[in-house]
């Protein structure tokens, strides 16, 4: 449905002589990205509103999107599956954050962060089958992913002593990103076998 809608927009632009037919695919791709991103953001925000977790929903979305821009990770093979998994990951993140909130010590936080950092050092960036990366891209994304990991670690360590709830949400989101990276790597190993 997203693809159809994106194609409709591009067709309309072509009919009105705003774009050339040779470049239509590029526009369809751009609109698909815009529409699916709006849908994903809306799903997380609505879930956040329903759960009375709006700040955590915004934090989850920002951490998830910024980190995965360069690290990559698991993606389902359709928009519907990807959106459903995205919401499930959000709900799990919120549930774990609330569950661990009372008992979370600084040492546990560092253990969780090291799982995420370990995954980044081992696997980032993970190339998507639909999105080929050049060797230059891979090296650049790896460096950026490591830089982003350093930033998140610093932010989490500071927030732990200021607003523990948000520090925990960021940390659990990062662990979920690490798990999604490991799932993607394992899926590829199974396909290779």
């Amino acid at each position, binding site marked *: 449905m997203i693809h159809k809608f994106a194609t409709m*927009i591009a067709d309309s632009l072509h009919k009105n002589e705003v774009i050339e037919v*040779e470049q239509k695919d590029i526009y369809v791709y*751009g609109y698909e*990205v815009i529409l699916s991103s709006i849908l994903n953001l809306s799903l997380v925000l609505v879930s956040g509103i329903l759960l009375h977790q709006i700040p955590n929903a915004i934090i989850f979305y920002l951490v998830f999107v910024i980190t995965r*821009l360069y690290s990559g990770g698991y*993606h389902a093979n359709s928009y519907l599956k*990807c959106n459903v998994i995205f919401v499930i990951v959000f709900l799990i993140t919120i549930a774990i954050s609330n569950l661990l909130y009372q008992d979370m010590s600084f040492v546990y936080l560092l253990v969780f962060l090291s799982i995420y950092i370990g995954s980044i050092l081992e696997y980032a960036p993970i190339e998507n089958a639909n999105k*080929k990366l050049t060797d230059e*891209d891979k090296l650049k994304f790896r460096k950026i992913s490591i830089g982003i990991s350093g930033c998140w670690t610093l932010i989490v360590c500071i927030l732990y002593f200021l607003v523990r709830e948000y520090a925990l949400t960021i940390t659990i989101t990062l662990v979920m990103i690490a798990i999604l990276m490991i799932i993607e790597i394992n899926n590829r190993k199974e396909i290779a076998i």
Partner: protein
Amino acid sequence: MKKTILKAVAKLGYNMALEAAGTASMYGTYQPVEPKALQQLRNKK
């Protein structure tokens, strides 16, 4: 007026496509197949 709005819509789609092409995973969502024309455009830059 209509043409100006359509051009703005077109520019938005084009820029987003270019932006998405330079990432490992765009906005955490399903990644559509990157068009060959876009890959060629990126390689030129």
